[in-house]
């Protein structure tokens, strides 16, 4: 188990080990849903919620079911099943109680299931041997970091709408260049603390 303070881990997962800008996980929805700040924030909240809870669920499943039974090698399939079930549950709740958010997220809400960042966090938690509190801080921090990155990109894209982007770069091209520049910017934080 690493000895990192959970608060340090939380901060590091937002800035120095950001899921998108340092690990490049969860890029599809990051690129596709970052057209509008409000929608991006909604998706970011949903991802943070799912990330935090699935990390906790997967922590317990791994520690109290898979390890005692010597079935650690099943972690991929078990984590994926628990993430899929949890996302379906969240979708039902959001559809019922938050129809505006459900409409804004559209097809991207169920697609959280296949957001690599969600599975990535659970697997990092296992590989890095985090404790429960560390896993919680890491899961929540990764979600916050993912939200921050997508909202920042949505803000930049909004400014881009008013800019004269060369025709061949409009859309996906300029988005990838901006993402690269954001990642370069975030590299500036990497001297603060490294988690591995």
């Amino acid at each position, binding site marked *: 188990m690493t000895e990192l303070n959970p608060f340090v881990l939380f901060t590091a997962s937002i800035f120095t080990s950001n899921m998108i800008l340092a690990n490049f996980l969860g890029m599809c929805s990051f690129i596709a849903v970052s057209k509008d700040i409000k929608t991006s924030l909604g998706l970011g909240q949903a991802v943070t919620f799912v990330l935090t809870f699935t990390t906790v669920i997967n922590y317990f*499943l791994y520690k109290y*079911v*898979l390890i005692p*039974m*010597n*079935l650690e090698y*099943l972690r991929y*399939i*078990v984590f994926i*099943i*628990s993430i899929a*079930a949890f996302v*379906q*549950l969240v979708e*039902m*709740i959001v*559809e*019922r109680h938050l*129809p505006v958010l459900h*409409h804004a997220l*559209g*097809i991207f809400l169920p697609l959280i299931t296949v957001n690599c960042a969600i599975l990535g966090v659970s697997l990092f938690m296992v590989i890095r041997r985090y404790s429960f509190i560390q896993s919680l801080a890491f899961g929540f921090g990764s979600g916050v970091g993912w939200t921050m990155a997508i909202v920042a990109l949505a803000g930049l894209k909004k400014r881009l709408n008013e800019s004269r982007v060369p025709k061949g770069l409009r859309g996906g091209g300029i988005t990838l260049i901006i993402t690269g520049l954001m990642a370069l910017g975030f590299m500036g934080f990497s001297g603060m603390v490294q988690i591995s």
Partner: protein
Amino acid sequence: MNDIVSTIAIMSGITGFLAFLLTLAKRTVGDYGMVDITINGKKKLEVRGGDTLLSALSSEKIFIPSACGGKGTCGYCKLKVIEGGGAILPMEEGLISVEEIDAGVRLACQIKVKEPIKIEIPEDLFNVREYKAVVRKIEDITPKIKHLVLDILEGGEIDFKPGQYVQLVAPPYAESDESVQRAYSIASCPTDKNFIELIIGYVEGGVCTTYVHKYLKEGDSVSFNGPFGNFFYKDNDREMIMVAAGTGMAPILSILRAMKSSGIERRCLFFFGAKNRDDLFFMDKMQNLEESLFDFEFVPALSRIGPEDDWEGERGRVTEPLLKHLEHIENKEAYLCGSPVMIDAIVKLLIEKGMDEERIYYDKF
């Protein structure tokens, strides 16, 4: 051995628990109770909430056309939503025009019935029924096209307008694990109410066409629903120009048969496009119609026939013989059936020649 048993037990336990949790959620969070659907301001249905509008209407025996079976890809299940249904979804925006959105048009397969909803559908759809039938005849009329005759069971009769289509249901079979519905135009005459004729071309990998071409045989039971469609014969005294290719012959044949049975006396030219001689079919039927209809001419055009081949008819694309007959466009109307590319090209050509767009009727498939 213990490893295998414990692995299976743990996986079953985890998935079973999650399935239990989701079922519980479906029964509590996902239970919207009974919801009212008001149709055309007069008919009221009470359905269980949570399902799509398309499924809810279908369970009440009101069939909205849907070629993709509710997956949001064909855009056939359009209807007007007056109240309820929520805001338009991104999935719908690609299939509904801006004008239609302003008019309240939505896709029935994308709306979930969670609150009372008021809709408008064409009155014709109330006549749409589900029919059970048995295959009387299934035969190859070209290497890739089959002619089907389906006898309607239980003394059932179908009322349709010549040119309309039905949705044939392909049940799960060896190459498909789900039931799908696909639209096919009726080729028979509306006066023949106890059976329908369909002309079905083979589409590589097509679920329904593979079922028809490789698995369906005479004596088998099938089901279909219908009739649907706004493409049908319009009664007036204008000269008729008909253009079709391949299975597009079906609705035209139905119109011609209806004209014959009603003794309609109108000048009518039918241009039929095919690649080569093998793709021509029902030539005997066309000859018979030429002899029995008031003033009907069948003009087949072959596009891939060599100059050395023994063919005295029109050569080239179907637009070429059509152009020769378009010198005097006034008092003519057109009925077109075939691929979107062919129809778009012909519509453009007819408009350029001066035909009023409102007199061009077409069915793209």
